[in-house]
């Protein structure tokens, strides 16, 4: 196998693994902030127990996220040095800003959240919860800025040597896809946690454990689960329109849309035959066009309008996109059903509903990983859309053999981290909010 492909596999694997953890961190920080705010206002010990429980989980989640996050920062230099040389002007400042403005804040105060309960006053503890929430989200903001700039570059010029020069930091940061992608990603993270909280609390309630604490936790989880996927529907819709406008090749691949035309269909499920350039499946006629601008006859560009060497692997993008959308619809249903049960007061005895909740905890991860694959594979063959090919970005001095070594190392270490994480996660959940 050649070094480029190995480097891509390694990046996909390490970022895919890392992404599991920040996706949980943001939502967990939100739940902690909610319960600690309620604790401060109502002085009810139930909320303190909920905060402390999720702070313990956050400790585990955060540490694996931080450990695997450093790998990502190194990886641009170790494996993508040509990319780093070319985009240092823009990509570097964004990563550095993430450190100064965001990650310091999150990391310094996460220590207070995990270790400080007995050391600090309730108000300082609440402040720490707020700052971890803000720091985590700012961190996501800058990382999404960096990634969005690769999707829709802005605020730059190319000099005579082919180097990318920053001309407007503001334009680079607020590039055309940034806001849409940030909202979409943060909401995905909140959904991840809404399902996690509901799943854990559902398990407790069904087993009759932790009484009022479990019921309150379930209430918080279900309310989040009812709200967040619905907001996500709107955010995702905005993001999709932005992709159609700014990255038409990716948008066409997402729906397996080959020929430019009016009244493009929306597939519910399907398969793209890339050889014959045809898409099969169950579809809603004209709905892709309708969703673009609420006009059943609007024109959507097809893949054939673009040179074939600039197409991404169409079926991969199509399938990952549809898995994400399908799961999104499922979360909406799950949340609304839960809300109805909560509203009618039946939820604490609805064993058929509570039984399934814990099994759904991995599903949001599947959804956001699929979304990530859609975004990143959909950008191929570019590393920076329209500007630089992935094939030109890898390190020149790193051999295939060296990457095999590091890939095996990451595979083994991450397997160990994963097994340990799941075991300890389950263990902390089993100990529950009553634990000291």
């Amino acid at each position, binding site marked *: 196998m050649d070094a480029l492909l190995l480097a891509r596999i390694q990046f996909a694997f390490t970022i895919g693994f890392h992404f599991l953890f920040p996706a949980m961190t943001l939502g967990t920080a939100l739940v902690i902030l909610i319960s600690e705010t309620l604790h401060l206002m109502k002085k009810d010990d139930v909320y303190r127990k909920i905060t402390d429980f999720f702070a313990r989980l956050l400790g*585990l989640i*955060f*540490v*694996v996220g*931080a*450990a695997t996050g*450093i*790998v990502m*920062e*190194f990886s*641009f*230099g*170790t*494996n993508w*040095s040509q990319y*780093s*040389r070319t*985009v*240092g*002007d*823009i*990509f*570097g*400042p964004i*990563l*550095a*800003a993430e*450190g*100064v*403005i965001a*990650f*310091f*804040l999150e*990391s*310094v*105060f996460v*220590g*207070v959240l995990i*270790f*400080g309960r007995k*050391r*600090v006053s309730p108000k300082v503890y609440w402040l720490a919860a707020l700052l971890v929430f803000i720091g985590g989200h700012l961190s996501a903001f800058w990382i999404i800025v960096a990634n969005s700039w690769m999707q829709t570059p802005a605020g730059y010029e190319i000099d005579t040597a082919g180097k990318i*020069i*920053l*001309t407007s*930091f503001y334009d680079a940061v607020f590039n055309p896809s940034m806001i849409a992608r940030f909202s979409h990603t943060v909401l995905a993270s909140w959904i991840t946690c809404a399902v996690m909280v509901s799943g854990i609390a559902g398990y407790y309630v069904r087993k009759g454990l932790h009484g009022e604490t479990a019921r309150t936790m379930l209430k918080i989880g279900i309310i989040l689960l009812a709200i967040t996927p619905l907001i996500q529907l709107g955010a995702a819709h905005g993001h999709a329109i932005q992709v159609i406008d700014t990255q038409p090749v990716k948008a066409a691949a997402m729906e397996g849309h080959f020929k430019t035309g009016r009244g493009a269909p929306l597939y519910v499920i399907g398969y793209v035959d890339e050889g014959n350039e045809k898409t099969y499946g169950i579809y809603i006629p004209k709905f892709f066009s309708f969703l673009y601008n609420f006009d059943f006859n609007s024109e959507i560009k097809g893949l054939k309008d673009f040179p074939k060497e600039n197409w991404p692997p169409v079926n991969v993008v199509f399938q990952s996109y549809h898995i994400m959308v399908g799961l999104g619809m499922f979360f909406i249903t799950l949340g609304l059903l839960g809300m109805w049960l909560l509203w009618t007061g039946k939820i604490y005895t609805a064993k058929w509903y509570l039984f399934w909740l814990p099994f759904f905890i991995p599903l949001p991860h599947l959804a956001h990983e699929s979304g990530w694959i859609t975004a990143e594979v959909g950008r191929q063959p570019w590393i920076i859309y329209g500007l630089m090919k992935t094939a030109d970005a890898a*390190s*020149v*001095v*790193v051999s295939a053999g060296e990457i095999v*070594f*590091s890939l095996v*190392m990451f595979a083994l*270490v991450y397997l160990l*981290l994963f097994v*340990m994480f799941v*075991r*300890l996660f389950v*263990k*902390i959940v089993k100990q529950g909010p009553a634990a000291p």
Partner: protein
Amino acid sequence: MENIQNFQILWFVLIFILLLGYALLDGFDMGVGALLPFLGGNKEEKDTLIASIGPVWDGNEVWLITGGGALFAAFPHAYATAFSGFYLAMMLVLLALIFRAVSMEFRANDPARAGLWEKALVGGSALAALLFGVALGNVIYGVPLTDKMEYAGKFFTLLRPVPLLFGVAGLAAVLLQGASWAVMKTEGELQERSFQAVRVLMWINVITALVYFVVLSVTFSRLSGNVLFYVAVVLTFAGLIGLFFSARKKNDVAPFWESSFSFVGLFLAAGAAQFPNLIAASNGPNFSLTIYNSSTGLYTLQVMAVIALIGMPIVIGYTIFVYRLFKGKTRADDHY
């Protein structure tokens, strides 16, 4: 200050400060990690040692992340050349940092395998500290580079005596940071053992620092007459001499500051030897990556300077605030 050179120099200084901050802060918690079995006699004592660094180590590590980001932002060629050139060594650094990070959390939640995670903590901490010194030693001492700014050496090129000396001197300084932190945060027998470690490590540091400064002054002719270099030597030995007396007097707090001064001296000498190089070329100075031929554009350096000069004082402010929250001796209820 429209001149780009001013900003290139400013960024050399800022990255120096970020890496120094990393060395001092993550230095003490890696030092505690590496010394865990030597200082902690039983599980209780080990719990106390880990609890003393638990709330702060993750914030400390951000100095490295920010330093790396700043290097990428200001001098992308140096970042790209060093990280891709030292590929296998960088992978070992990552391995060490991963295990160092997760081992404390895993040890607390997985008591059945606590011994294993302690070994991971000790190994990860010591290996990371050693490798950072070796890496710095290499970029200062010089490595073979091509005219395309790419590394032309091999893995074993990195393990020459002078860079290894940097690694050993750095590790010794990190261990001293750890032992003197333990002195500040613990009591009783545990503190007694930490004092012993400080005394032994002080003498080791006297030797490694002496060799380090002599080798630097022989290797880098530009250091003769360099005021910063002399200041560095004075700082290090003033720190170590102070340490000698405060360890005798059983002062709780002073050893940590004295150890830090001594470490600052080592760093300052390295910076003086390095400037204005980022990665010295062993095959001729024309191939060297300097702050002048490796930087980003003026506008990027300016934007970053604004972010850093506003942001870092705030970071330092709330970092001090949090350290003060956990001030004093580590208590049993600080444990995981």
